[in-house]
């Protein structure tokens, strides 16, 4: 049998649209694959380019929510935020197994299944990274009383961490910029947050804003650095343990390590 391969955009909507098409085009089967980004061409396969259609993605989302509940949906959202090239396939198979009724009990408990386990692991990975961002990102106050944070996470976590900060700082104007993906999560006081993309041409301008200081900023940064330094008990010094908890890759944007 000739394999079907659906090629979709690297985004949550992209993958979910592809899953919709699998069913619509009656391609569902163990050999069908969802591939993200460029098609890597194989002989003996039928390729389908899938264009992203948000309303179709939404349909898949609501099916998952209805059939498998909120927990499963959260696992899938987090898994789809990862940069793993196999995420689309794993999510597709997981949903397919669920719809086929192959798993007894909650879908995400079926860890003996390789695809479900993959979704589980990807999701856990992204969860950890989102959590690390919540811990380690630092805001800097720039002119106009705006708080700016810069991140470069491995997974696309901006939209996943915005709710946390929006709840925490309802009266603040703040922006979280993922300079790796050119995304900005934006929150204005008392308003709902959103994520915007910016173009490469804006890089210099974004860097400029991220580099600004408000009047108080330098003093606060100095105070915090001193605080962190004093807090270490020298009789217990343990740099390895510090590194285990706080990997070096997160430090470039952290106030106390710059």
């Amino acid at each position, binding site marked *: 049998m000739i394999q079907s391969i659906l090629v979709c955009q690297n985004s949550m909507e992209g993958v979910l649209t592809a899953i919709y098409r699998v069913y619509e085009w009656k391609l569902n089967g163990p050999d069908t694959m969802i591939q993200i980004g460029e098609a890597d061409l194989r002989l003996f396969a039928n390729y389908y380019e899938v264009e992203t259609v948000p309303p179709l993605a939404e349909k898949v989302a609501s099916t998952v929510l209805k059939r498998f509940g909120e927990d499963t949906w959260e696992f899938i959202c987090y898994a789809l935020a990862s940069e793993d090239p196999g995420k689309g396939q794993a999510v597709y198979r997981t949903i397919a197994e669920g719809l086929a009724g192959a798993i007894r009990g909650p879908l995400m408990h079926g*860890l003996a299944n390789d695809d479900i386990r993959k979704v589980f692991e990807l999701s856990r990975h992204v969860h950890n990274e989102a959590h690390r961002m919540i811990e380690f990102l630092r805001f800097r106050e720039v002119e106009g009383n705006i708080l700016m944070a810069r991140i470069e996470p491995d997974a696309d976590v901006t939209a996943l961490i915005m709710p946390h900060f929006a709840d925490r700082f309802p009266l603040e104007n703040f922006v979280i910029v993922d300079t790796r993906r050119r995304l900005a999560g934006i929150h204005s006081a008392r308003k709902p947050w959103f994520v915007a993309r910016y173009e490469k041409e804006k890089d210099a301008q974004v860097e400029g804003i991220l580099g600004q200081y408000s009047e108080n900023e330098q003093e606060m940064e100095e105070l915090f650095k001193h605080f962190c330094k004093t807090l270490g008990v020298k009789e217990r010094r343990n740099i390895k343990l510090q590194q285990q908890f706080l990997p070096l890759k997160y430090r470039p944007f952290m106030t106390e390590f710059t």
Partner: protein
Amino acid sequence: MEKLEILSDAAKYDVACTSSGSERKNDGTGIGNAVKAGICHSFSSDGRCISLLKILFTNECIYDCKYCINRRSNDVPRASFTPDELCRLTIEFYRRNYIEGLFLSSGILYNPTFTMGLIYQTVYKLRNEYRFQGYIHVKAIPGADPELIQMVGFLVDRMSINLELPTAEGLSRLAPNKHRKTILAPMRLIQNGIVSNREELALYRNAPEFVPAGQSTQMIIGATPENDYQILTVAEKLYQKFDLKRVFYSAFVRVNEDRELPALPGGPPLLREHRLYQADWLLRFYGFEAKELLSEDRPDFNILLDPKADWALRHLEEFPVEINRAPYEKLLRVPGIGVKSARRIVQARRSSQLEFQHLKKIGVVLRRAVYFITCNGRMMYSVKIEEDFITRQLLDCKERLPFDADGATYRQLSLFDDRRFVMGQDQLIRQVIS
């Protein structure tokens, strides 16, 4: 700047720095929320989490506790904050995502009630004027007016009163101005406050919350001669009789020269502290009792094995445990199986019979567990359940210790860590080790 340095330096020996136990959304009128599991924002050079602005209101003190850097008889620079200074600092740090909140303690200025009053003013302002809804942990000062302690309890998430030393004798020797009674009385007061608040909240959902993240305490380990069994028994009592959320153990750091204080050539007893934390987990989450882990005849933890492995080796008759049938509580007692793994096993075995390869897949680490479990009646390797053999195997899977670092070897650490060594009977400990 200098003030911050003096007053955070003086606070750093307190080990509690968690921001856990409260869950609260922002009501839209201020700044901050609280996350049940707590959030660490950084780690200091000793590998400890930085979660709260841990600081003293003042390091002035009328008392003279022998182990404390702030004691009256020490000649150190002194400083005090004003409530507004502390509020501003908290808010500015919090907005930048440096911290989860404030952990406020204090030396005793004039008298306990006066000091508690300053703390009250600070947290009152922080909550009401600065509209701060993040995490606050406050140290209650023993001997302060109970009413004041009560009032503070309605403003904060967690309160703690340090037991300081595990026994009353230890306390009277090293902290002559403190008394066991004045420490336990406010602890009881807070406990009762929490209980009656719970009833109130059940009736009126909008009643103000009293110390919602519970209370904790801290004991200094290794400054006085108590053994591990005594310490763990005290901790168990505190959990049972005072409903404490956490007991913290703080390896004694010798900051003062004093005849009454032990010399610690190997530095603070970190391995001992570590074993106590491990055992503390066993009490709180694994259904163990202190007297199962230690006894009068065996009053100290094994230097080479963690408390659970040590227990298992002395109770081989309870093993092997069958993964597909054993109740959750039994799974928890298997060395190498933690709360997460035990939960996953229980979940996964509902949908299929588990074999060893499934266990690996769901993330159960088998390295240590293999000697204690069967899957469908079979062990992974055919091994005898025999103490010497398993002990050797377990010692071979090197335990990852949090301080096995920075050049100090395991043996050095374990040698100096042992209580008996601290007490000067190094002969004995040499025998144990070699």
